[in-house]
């Protein structure tokens, strides 16, 4: 380990420093002044983002004996994670102002972010296990943070399923060691083809099951609706965005690296998972009345589109840039959608939300931008993400998957419109506005919508320079 290696982890170090520093400061801060911990957390995210952006264009390098890779994918995940986490902290601040455990929430959020970064950057099976735990354990706590019945139940489900999958992950890592004697991806990909096919299959199954679980893909998605619906909007935004993008990046590395050649049929398996995720997520979302549950299923289907790119990882040249673009786009848009939920507090249903936006047309405009963004309408960022996903999957020979994804996109429009239509009706009526809305959540919503449009228009140029 050299100083150079440590410096490469500066974005993660910033998050960790903010978490530890925030915890210490929080201990010595009176209840009413805990806002300063939120500032520390946001500052940590910004430093992390700045440090990540500074090395974004640099050549690929691996540090700590090849266990940690800093490339463009890591860089984009770091940026997206930092931005999303900052937004979550802002949302949390509104929810938790004056809460006795306010500091803990910020610290746990930062730790989840750290875990997501690690998931995305790791190129070693053992580090993957550690990252998995780091991205999971704080999230259980946050899910049950309100200590209400639904949150507790959701956290319990989340925890039990996660623990089960964690064991599968360990089995997979053990199989990898058994088959090749190594855990680093580079070494594994060289020697895995020589290992027994069953062992290779077991290893792939175990590692991928874990990252797909974190990503919330079918068939290991059962925790998503409960956890997202049971948690507060800010926490829901966190667990449906931050670990997810880290996990998808991890899946991409696994499919492009150690499992590129063996086991046979892996790509087809991922394609089937993608198809199942987008389809089942959409079908389940159709008739939901709870906003967060609807968004939970929407994130499952989004993961399906993201996995289209993972399917062709390593075989199509444009796959990595397409993945980076979609990850960034998804993070921005999904945060925006949850900020819309948070912007109209205590309204948890579609109809309730509509009633809450009377006289506030701009909230609806930003919501429309975010939801049409999730559908993939140009010029939002997710359109470019989907375009990349469709193009790379078709290029890799998965035309059927692309057709299915297109049909699913149309279907998803239906349930997003179920949210927009009643609100549009209310906004266009001339009823006066009622009550107040939390300003920070509104700011996050508008920022996300604007960023989505801006990214959609300029991402191509950014991608060229990065």
């Amino acid at each position, binding site marked *: 380990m050299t100083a150079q290696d440590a410096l490469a982890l500066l974005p993660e170090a910033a998050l960790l420093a903010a978490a530890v520093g925030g915890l210490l400061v929080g201990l010595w801060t009176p209840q009413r002044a805990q806002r300063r911990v939120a500032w520390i957390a946001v500052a940590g995210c910004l430093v992390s983002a700045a440090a990540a952006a500074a090395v974004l264009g640099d050549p690929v390098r691996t540090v700590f004996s090849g266990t940690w890779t800093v490339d463009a994918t890591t860089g984009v995940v770091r940026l997206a994670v930092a931005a999303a986490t900052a937004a979550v902290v802002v949302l949390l601040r509104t929810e938790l102002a004056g809460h006795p455990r306010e500091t803990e929430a910020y610290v746990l959020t930062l730790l989840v972010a750290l875990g997501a970064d690690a998931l995305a950057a790791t190129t070693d099976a053992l580090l993957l296990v550690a990252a998995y735990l780091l991205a999971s354990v704080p999230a259980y706590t946050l899910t049950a943070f309100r200590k209400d019945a639904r949150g507790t139940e959701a956290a319990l489900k989340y925890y039990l399923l996660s623990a089960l999958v964690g064991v599968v992950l360990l089995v997979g890592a053990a199989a990898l060691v058994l088959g090749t004697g190594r855990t680093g991806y580079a070494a594994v990909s060289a020697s895995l083809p020589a290992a027994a096919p069953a062992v290779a299959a077991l290893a792939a199954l175990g590692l991928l099951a874990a990252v797909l679980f974190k990503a919330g893909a079918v068939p290991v998605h059962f925790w998503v609706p409960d956890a997202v619906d049971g948690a507060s909007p800010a926490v829901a935004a966190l667990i449906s965005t931050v670990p997810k993008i880290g996990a998808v990046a991890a899946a991409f590395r696994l499919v492009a690296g150690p499992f590129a050649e063996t086991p046979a049929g892996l790509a087809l398996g991922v394609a089937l998972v993608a198809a199942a995720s987008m389809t089942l997520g959409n079908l389940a979302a159709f008739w939901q009345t709870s906003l967060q549950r609807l968004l939970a299923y929407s994130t499952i289907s989004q993961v399906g589109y993201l996995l289209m790119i993972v399917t062709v990882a390593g075989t199509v040249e*444009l796959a990595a*840039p397409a993945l980076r673009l979609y990850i960034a786009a998804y993070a921005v848009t999904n945060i925006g959608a949850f900020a819309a939920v948070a912007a109209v507090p205590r309204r948890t249903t579609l109809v309730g939300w509509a009633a809450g936006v009377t006289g506030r*047309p701009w909230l609806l405009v930003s919501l429309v931008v975010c939801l*049409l963004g999730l*559908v993939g*309408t*140009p*010029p939002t960022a997710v*359109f*470019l993400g989907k*375009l990349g996903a*469709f*193009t790379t999957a*078709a*290029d890799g020979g998965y035309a059927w998957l*692309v*057709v299915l994804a*297109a*049909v699913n*996109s*149309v279907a998803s*429009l*239906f349930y997003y*419109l179920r949210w927009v*239509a009643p609100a*549009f*009706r209310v906004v*266009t009526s001339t009823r006066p506005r009622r009550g107040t809305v939390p300003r920070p959540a509104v700011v996050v919503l508008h920022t996300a919508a604007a960023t989505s449009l801006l990214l959609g228009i300029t*991402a*191509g*140029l950014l*991608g*060229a320079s990065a």
Partner: protein
Amino acid sequence: MLLTVLVLLPALAGLVLVAARVPDRAASWAWVATSSVVVGLVAWLWWGFDPGGGFQYDVKLRWIPTVDASYHVGVDGLSLPLLALTAVLFWCCAVWSLRGTPRPRSHAALFLLLQTTCLGTFAALDLILFFLFFDLSIVAMYFVIAGWGHGDRRRSALTFFLYTFLGSLALLLGFIGLFLGSEPRTFDIVRLVEDPPWAGQSGTATWVLLALVVGLAVKTPLVPFHTWLPPAHTDAPAEGSAVLAGVLLKLGTFGFVRIAMPTLPDAWQRWGTWIVVIGVVSVLWGALVALAQDDLKRMIAYTSVNHMGYVLLGLGAVGVLARDGADGSGPAAAAGVAATGAVVQMVSHGLLTGALFLVAGMLWTRGGTYAFARWGGLARALPGFAVLFAVAAFGSLGLPGLSGFVAEFQIFAGSLAAVPVAVVVAVVGILLTAGLFLRALQRLLTGDLRVPDGVDTGGLGAVTTVERVAVVPLLALSVAVGLLPWVLVDVVGPAADGLVALVAR
């Protein structure tokens, strides 16, 4: 630069209207002012346009270099008339809306956004840019129908959105297909036309063409993808229907001439006969179903299916002629005539159907219904309405002296040699259209005065100045094209010949 200003000006004006909270009345006038400027810009564009000069006013800026998508816009003889149509029709709708509409500011802003999407689609020379504007037009139209329509507007708006969005995603798949077949890979229409993708791989080209045709057919709409159209038209406000039928349908047919035909010439030749069949089926189906309607607006909506069928008949015949001429004799001059007719038909239909929908809106304002059974004898009670409706109806049924005749005559004359049976069948469609318009005229204008319950027969009111100013330019232009067709044909003709040459490769 001029073209970029033209395309983006309406959307920017709309944004300013909303952001600056302009007062309602001022917003309506600001909309009229903006659309006047757009008409002026198009006139300037037309003035400086050289019909034989290919793409002009073109601008190409880097946008997504990794897949060679760029901000590339330009005008040729195929798109210029449609840009002009868009400018004029939106101007008429702006004037029409001076009559007063709920929430005028957001109404004006949405229509201005819609205008940008339409102008942008016609000007786009890049597939992604084309798709961007194409898709946004659906979004804007959805909110127009859902917010300002009548009847079961939410359901109609939802049907419209879902159905046309399905079409646009099929189109996107087709675009991705074109991209993957190009070498080097590009989304640039000009480069795709220069070096057609999937040349020599007829199987894949057929699939790509199928995706494009389905996507564009939904928007056009062609039988059997037309079922979204009648409810959307019936429940949209008059100015919304006028724009939907007058301009948005053209985005579909324009896609055929701009993208599908020149980028997949082989496939277009091979499937030309089937395109003709789809066209003829749309002609007959649209006319027959229109004949069965007892609601004026639904009837006009179905005649759109009929009129767009002629366009496809002409374009399909181009493919057939190009295929038959592949033995070295070259496509007959007839192909150029058919292609010209198809483009003229787009413009003509936009003018006449736009006028028809606005005229139908007069009935809604006065009685809240479009049902034939509820109105009668309006020739005496509302003479202004009778004149405008009669002129628009005669134009739409193809009376010589109006633009519809010029267009349909060229389509038939050009297609006759290639697909004689289809042309004969399509002429039956003309007879049906004539019959249904004459019947509509008879029901609404003649006989004893009949008005919906609760409407004071004396209080129908004359056609107002605003209404007249909104409708008359459309009819005047239609007459102008009918009497002086060379004004339009001189611009369209060279570009249409160029298109034929591309298809005949």
